[in-house]
């Protein structure tokens, strides 16, 4: 019964991206679990392909520590909200579903920010207002609306993990570029990994400043599109 419902729903146009591949897919749930996971990381990477969740991506990628912290936070919130929304999806009246989703997401973000404040105070301070702003990150509401409200708990968890890891990978790539060029060294959670001889004495500060964020993401997007254009030809 629930399977039938899934298939009929996934034929409707989605707000985030097309999900046609689910229609024929009717195999064991374990193989679908891995498929959902891989889809989020590669095929529909939230930052480079779907260009969602741009505000935190630009703001906190000036160091890899921040990027990892934000990635972990988004994975946690996505998991919490997707699992909760998917488990109450049959009890939620369609008319008030968006407020319900928002309250669930806001509660998860509150838990996350309390945990960060208690156990990781330096990270909490450097993320600043961008940690509570996870609540309006369009990735999370997008997944709740497009996936978790229509699929089983296990698949929703896989989707959350995949999209969350894809988002984290994108954050890490951007922050690696910005931190290495911008400071000439790499530091993870206060421990220095390496130092580039010429660059660390005369770092290109432009890359860790706000304009550098726009430049790096613009170039990354163009690169991803260039690969797409070459592949399609």
């Amino acid at each position, binding site marked *: 019964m629930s399977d039938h419902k899934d298939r009929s729903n996934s034929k409707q146009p989605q707000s985030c991206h097309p999900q046609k591949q689910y229609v024929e897919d009717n195999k064991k749930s374990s193989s679908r679990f891995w498929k959902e996971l891989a889809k989020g990381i590669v095929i529909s990477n939230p930052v480079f392909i779907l260009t969602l969740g741009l505000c935190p991506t*630009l703001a906190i990628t000036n160091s890899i520590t921040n990027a990892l912290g934000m990635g972990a936070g988004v994975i946690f919130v996505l998991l919490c909200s997707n699992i909760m929304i998917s488990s109450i999806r049959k009890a939620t009246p369609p008319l008030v579903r968006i407020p319900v989703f928002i309250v669930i997401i806001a509660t998860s973000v509150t838990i996350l920010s309390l945990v960060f404040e208690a156990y990781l105070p330096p990270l909490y301070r450097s993320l600043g207002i961008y940690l*509570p702003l996870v609540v309006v990150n369009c990735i999370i509401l997008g997944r709740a609306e497009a996936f978790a409200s229509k699929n089983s708990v296990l698949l929703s968890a896989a989707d959350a993990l995949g999209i969350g890891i894809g988002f984290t990978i994108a954050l890490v790539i951007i922050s690696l570029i910005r931190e290495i060029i911008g400071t000439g060294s790499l530091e993870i959670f206060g421990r220095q990994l390496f130092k580039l001889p010429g660059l660390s004495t005369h770092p290109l500060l432009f890359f860790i400043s*706000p304009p550098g964020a726009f430049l790096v993401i613009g*170039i990354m997007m163009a690169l991803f599109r260039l690969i797409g254009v070459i592949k399609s030809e």
Partner: protein
Amino acid sequence: MSNLFTIFIAMVIVNNIVLAKFLGLCPFFGVSKKLSNAFSMGIAVTLVMLIASVSTSVIYNYILVPYRVEFMNIVIYILVIASLVQIVELIIRRTNIILYNAMGIYLPLITTNCAVLGIALINSAENYSILESIVNALGAGIGFTLVLIIMSGIREKLDLADSPKSMRGLPVAFLTAALLALAFIGFNGMV
């Protein structure tokens, strides 16, 4: 008075909400293709930001702080902002149909705009009074409108330029934003 002026100027150009704080990027890139749309969107965001800042700062100063439940601010702010946007939309539709046609479609988009929630969170993080919150929100709104109008002016010209296939659209808009942000860095140290 000079304190209020400092907050205002800092918010409009020095700590510009789009170019320095990266808030409200979705409307910044989504609605900056035409100059007329950019202006309507800017006014709508400024209006909602003002109303949202007033109400969230009243709630913060008179409810959350006295009862020591500041940690509830995320849940409460997002609910207040979402319902406010609905109310503003209803009022505009009933009273001024021309205004509604001009900016009605942008109002629902603003609910999930991080700039509005961001300003409310900045107000409470900085412990601003209600008057300071209003000035802060006004500065942020005007800064947003200013940058949106500059950006749409540039993008109208960019459409005519012959750029490489993979750079068209969003990537070249990001590079333009980088140059714009670089120009705004020149205001650093002014306040």
